[in-house]
């Protein structure tokens, strides 16, 4: 563990830990003899960093959250998302990033971008949907084996080691957010060998259900979910309602003020599912609807 060649680094487990204060060369109290050999690492914010081998300390391997922690959720957090429809141009960068990071099968998406048009005379708009992470989740209600569950931080997850593949949750979800691994997922070798955790949803498993998980593995490292950081237009705001703050990476705003000032709403409020994803209506749009058709 002293020297880690780049390829062997398990990104999801290793990310960030090395660059915490403790391993910062300047803070190092003890004298370190440099070897001159450089090792590439990926930092917290996604940069590749070069560090002299000597600075690599044997960091206790940071495993994905244990099954028990995965089920409990992160204490003191209440995650929430705000999707600003006035900024969406159907670029699908969110979708691409999400599909790539979660190895979503061909043709399936966890983030779906709907072309919406409510009625004849209303204007069409683009509506990205993630899992709504409902506070009254109909999918969790119907699961016979506790394979999908609600956590104290609000996130609804799936344990693919337990799922029996009955697909009742898919029928129960009014937002059609869930997808099924009909085929064996195609995975790079490292990902296939990775230890499964409901927080990473990786490696995905055949015969079980998958869906947007709010990237709890990223969130545990105080990083934004992949869709949020992938969107160039800042459509997705993510944050902790306990901090009353959401951010899209470049703008950080008070959640309560954003939702109040821009008339935030939730999808299918009448069903009583109490989603955790809020929408800002498509007013004062940055792009024309037609711009989204060009892709």
């Amino acid at each position, binding site marked *: 563990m002293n020297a880690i060649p780049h390829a062997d680094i398990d990104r999801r487990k290793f990310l960030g830990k090395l660059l915490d204060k403790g391993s910062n060369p300047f803070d190092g109290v003890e004298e370190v003899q440099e070897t001159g050999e450089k090792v590439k690492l990926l930092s917290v914010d996604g940069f590749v960093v070069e560090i002299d081998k000597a600075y690599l300390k044997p960091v206790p391997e940071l495993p994905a959250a244990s099954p028990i922690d995965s089920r409990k959720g992160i204490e003191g957090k209440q995650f929430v998302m705000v999707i600003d429809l006035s900024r969406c141009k159907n670029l699908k960068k969110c979708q691409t990033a999400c599909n790539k990071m979660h190895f979503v099968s061909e043709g399936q998406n966890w983030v779906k971008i709907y072309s919406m048009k409510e009625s004849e005379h209303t204007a069409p708009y683009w509506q990205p949907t993630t899992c709504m992470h409902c506070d009254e989740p109909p999918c969790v209600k119907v699961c*016979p084996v506790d394979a999908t569950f609600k956590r104290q931080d609000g996130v609804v997850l799936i344990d693919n080691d337990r799922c029996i593949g009955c697909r009742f949750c898919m029928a129960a979800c009014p937002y059609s957010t869930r997808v099924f691994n009909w085929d064996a997922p195609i995975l790079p070798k490292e990902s296939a060998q990775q230890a499964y955790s409901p927080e990473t949803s990786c490696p995905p498993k055949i015969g079980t259900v998958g869906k947007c998980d709010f990237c709890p593995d990223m969130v545990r490292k105080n990083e934004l979910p992949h869709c949020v950081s992938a969107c160039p237009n800042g459509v997705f705001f993510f944050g902790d309602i306990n901090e009353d703050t959401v951010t899209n990476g470049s703008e950080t705003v008070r959640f309560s003020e954003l939702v109040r000032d821009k008339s935030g709403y939730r999808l299918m409020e009448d069903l009583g599912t109490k989603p955790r994803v809020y929408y800002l209506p498509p007013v004062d749009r940055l792009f024309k609807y037609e711009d989204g058709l060009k892709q």
Partner: protein
Amino acid sequence: MKSSADLQAIPQHELDKLMPQPFGKRGMWWVIVLSAVCVVGIVAYVRQLMYGLSVTGLRDYASWGIYISNFVFFVAVSLVGSLITAILRISNVTWSAPLTRIAEIIAVSSIVFASVIIVVDMGRPERFMNLFIYGRLQSPILWDVIVITTYMALSVLLLYFPLLPDLAIVLKSGKLKRRLRKLYEFLGTFWIGTPEQHRIKEKAINLLSIIIIPVALAIHTVTSWLFATTYRPGWDSTNFGAYFVSGAFLVGAGAVVVAMYAIRRAYSLEFFITERHFDRMGKLLVMLSLLYLYFNINEYLVPVFKMKKSEAEHLSSLFTGEFSLIFWPVIFISMVLPVIVLLFPAGRRPLPMFVIGILVVVGAWFKRFLIVTPTLLHPFLPMTDVPESYKHYFPTWEEWAITMGSLAGALLIVTMFIRLFPILPIDDIIKGEGYEKESA
């Protein structure tokens, strides 16, 4: 109860027909064909085990298809056991007594294959035990697991208790081959027919008849709740339990009609299964068809009147859209037509009854398909951003093979039962229960 004078009216050669008999040539072919269909189904299932549910036509929207509709069909058919045996018994209807065992074996084999097919639908059948290890009572699936297990136990008992005296009668006749005799001895040596044993048997059957009714209603109501507990258009209905139960009685009665015709023909049982039985089953079918039509009108007319946006798309796909070619035949051929035909005495004769019975059963199978899949293809959010193949559902050959295999399997169980055991309750018939002469 008939007087003892009537008993002597049953000629011995007619009674002999009630004994289990080896298959004839037609019987052999019937078994071979059924077994072949089963084998093809098993081959298809092996493929599904190897490649996962991707061998099916199911995709994210139509995530339930003919496996689930077939499951609902089996559960529906199995309800007939409680109808013919229990409900008619406790309402003191005696004419149906000769049909009870037919109804009960249909019930048992259907409920067995309902369980089989639901495992087939699972993405991870090897995790079946999770239902017991991690089962949570909030899920209607667990309720279904519980009531189906319970109903299976009750149905087997309801098949077994009335069989006891007959086992003794057949054993006594001494016509059994060695291996079959072993089976009979295992199952029924202890029946010696003392008055006390008869009293206990009657008590058990009475208790079963009462208990099985709420459980039977529960299996199909809970099965309907698998759908009705969701928000989906076409499923979001408080009417669903009653709608399913009434449909189940109809298809179950239809199945019994088909079976009694086939058994009557195969074993020349005209003496016992008379035209009067057909006549009465015909009247019952009319009533059940009307009942089911009533619930259908409720299920469709009320949402049609309101035409809520989400319901509207679903309904128009049924009435005029891609499912209309199944929807209208199901309504008219398997619900309206039986009422019209069976209202005429000539329509209640055995052959027309048999044809109508088949129409009812086949229609009921497609009806279950119409309940399950069209709804899933009309979600709240539009089906954009998915491959074209996700927007429609066509079952693959594997799905058809497995479904047909399960249906053939259920028929095979019924057939083997008829081969091994007396299909009519001999003891009851000798005692005159439900036995009616043509002239009566």
